[in-house]
C-alpha cells in the first residue's frame, strides 16, 4: 500500500514538466489577454468590449471574416460532397490515388498556397494575363473578397473530401436498390433517405470547415490559416466537432489588439 502510494506521487511528479510548459506557453498568455480585456482606464469592466462592438471598423472586420468563412465552407462542402460520393463509385486504384493526393494537398496551405495563387492569379500572374488576353477575366482580382473566397475554397476541398469520404459508407447500396424497386426516383432517394442519413456528417464537416476558415490570417496577405490541425485518417468524431465549435465561437479577435 505504502509503495503504491509512493508510486502515485512519483507519477504525479512526472506530470510536473508538462504542467509547467503548458502553463507558460498556453495558460499564462491566455490569462493575460483575458484579464487585460477587462481592464481599461476607468478600471475593471466591460468597457473594452462595448467599445469593440460599437466600433464600425471591428464589426466590419468581423462581418467580413464571417462572410468569407461561410461562403468558402459552403462551396467547399458542395464540391467535397460531390467528390467524396463519386470517389466511392470509381475503381479502387483511382480512388486510392486521389484520396492520397487530397491528403497531401491538405498540407498545402498558408503562405505557400497564397503564393501559388498570387503567382498564377495576381496582378501579373500568368493565368491573369492569359485570361485577360482571352477576355475572360472581367474585373476579377485575387486581392478581393471573391479572390479570398476562391483561395479559401481551394484549401477547404481536400479537408472536406477527407472528412466526408468515410460518411458515405453509411449510405448503403441496397437501400438505393430497395428505394428504386419501390419506385423512388434518384432525387426522391437522396431527398428522403440519402441526405437525412448523411446530415450529421455534413453538418459536422461544415462546422469544421467554418472553423478552418475562421482562423486569423497573417496581415497584408490573402492567406489561409497557417496550420490545420486534424488527423487525416480519423473520421469526424465528436472531439473534432467540439474543437471546431470552441474555435469558432469565442472569437472576436480584434479586441485583443486594443493595446
Amino acid at each position, binding site marked *: 500500500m505504502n509503495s503504491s502510494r509512493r508510486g502515485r506521487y512519483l507519477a504525479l511528479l512526472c506530470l510536473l514538466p508538462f504542467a509547467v510548459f503548458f502553463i507558460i*506557453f498556453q495558460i499564462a498568455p491566455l490569462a493575460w489577454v483575458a484579464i487585460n480585456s477587462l481592464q481599461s482606464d476607468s478600471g475593471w469592466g466591460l468597457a473594452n468590449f462595448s467599445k469593440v462592438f460599437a466600433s464600425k471598423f471591428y464589426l466590419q472586420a468581423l462581418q467580413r471574416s464571417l462572410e468569407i468563412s461561410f461562403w468558402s465552407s459552403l462551396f467547399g462542402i458542395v464540391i467535397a460532397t460531390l467528390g467524396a460520393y463519386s470517389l466511392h463509385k*470509381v475503381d479502387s486504384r483511382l480512388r486510392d490515388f486521389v484520396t492520397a493526393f487530397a491528403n497531401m494537398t491538405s498540407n498545402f496551405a498558408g503562405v505557400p498556397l497564397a503564393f501559388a495563387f498570387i503567382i498564377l492569379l495576381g496582378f501579373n500572374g500568368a493565368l491573369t494575363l492569359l485570361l485577360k488576353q482571352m477576355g475572360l477575366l472581367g474585373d476579377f482580382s485575387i486581392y478581393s473578397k471573391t479572390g479570398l473566397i476562391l483561395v479559401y475554397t481551394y484549401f477547404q476541398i481536400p479537408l472536406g473530401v477527407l472528412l466526408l469520404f468515410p460518411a458515405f459508407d453509411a449510405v448503403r447500396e441496397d437501400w438505393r436498390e430497395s428505394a428504386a424497386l419501390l419506385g423512388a426516383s434518384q432525387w426522391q432517394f437522396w431527398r428522403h433517405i440519402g441526405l437525412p442519413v448523411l446530415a450529421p456528417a455534413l453538418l459536422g464537416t461544415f462546422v469544421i470547415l467554418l472553423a478552418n476558415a475562421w482562423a486569423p490570417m497573417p496581415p497584408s496577405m490573402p492567406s489561409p490559416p497557417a496550420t490545420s490541425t486534424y488527423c487525416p485518417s480519423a473520421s469526424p468524431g465528436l472531439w473534432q466537432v467540439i474543437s471546431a465549435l470552441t474555435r469558432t465561437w469565442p472569437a472576436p*479577435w480584434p479586441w485583443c489588439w486594443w493595446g
Partner: protein
Amino acid sequence: MRAETGKGGLYHKLVVYLLFLILLLPLAGTLLYSLATSWSATMLPSGLTFKWYVALWSEPRFLAAFGQSLLVCVGALLLSVLLILPLLFVVHYHFPRLDAFMNVLILLPFAVPPVVSSVGLLQLYGSGPMAMVGTPWILIGCYFTIALPFMYRAITNNLQAINLRDLMDAAQLLGASTWQAAMLVVLPNLRKGLMVALLLSFSFLFGEFVFANLLVGTRYETLQVYLNNMRNSSGHFNSALVISYFAFVLVLTWVANRLNKDKT
C-alpha cells in the same frame, strides 16, 4: 464497394478526375512557372530552365531559413515527446479518470488562435526575467502547444490499441519494474504510431506562420517568414521556393502514410 459501370460510372469518373484537376491546378501551375524562363500572356512558357532552383538552393538566406525551420520543428517535437509520453503513460496507467479532463485541456490550443496567444506572449516574455521573444526558444514552446492536441490523440489511440494495462501487468509478473516495463515493453510497441504522429505534426509545424512572424520575425527567420518577406521578389524564384517546400512536405506525408498503412 464496387465500381459502377456504364453511364453512371462515366459520370463518377469525370467528377473524380475533375476533383483531381482542381486540386492539381495551382500546384502544376506553380511548378511550371518555377521551371519557366519567362511566362507571360501565352498558353505555355517560352522555355524551360532549372536556373531558379539553382539560384534558390545557393541562396544563403534561404538555406539558413530552411535549417532554422528544421531546428525549431525538430526541437519542438523532441520537447513534445519528452513531455507528452510520460504524461500519457501516467494518465492512462495511474489516473485513467484524468483522461476526460485532459481531453478538455488539449482543446485550448485549438480554441485559442495563435494571434490571441501572441498578444499575451509578447507582453509576458518581451522583457523581464523570462525574455524569450525574438529567440527560437519561444517558438519551440509554442509549437509544443500546437502539436499537443494532435500528438495526444494519436498516441492515445495507439495506447488503447495495445492494451496498456495487460502489457504492464505481464511485464511486471515477469519481474520488470514499472520503469523497465514502460521503456522496454510499452515504448517499442508505440514506435510506429509515434513516428506517424511525429511526421504529420512536423509537416504542419513546418508550415506554421503566425507565431513565427509575430513572435520572432526576421530575428530568427523560419522558412514561412522568409517566404513572406520574399513576396516582392521574382515570381519564378518564389515558385521554386513554394515547390521545394511542398516537395519536402510531400515526402514527409508520403512516408507517414506508408507507415500508417503497414500498421494496419
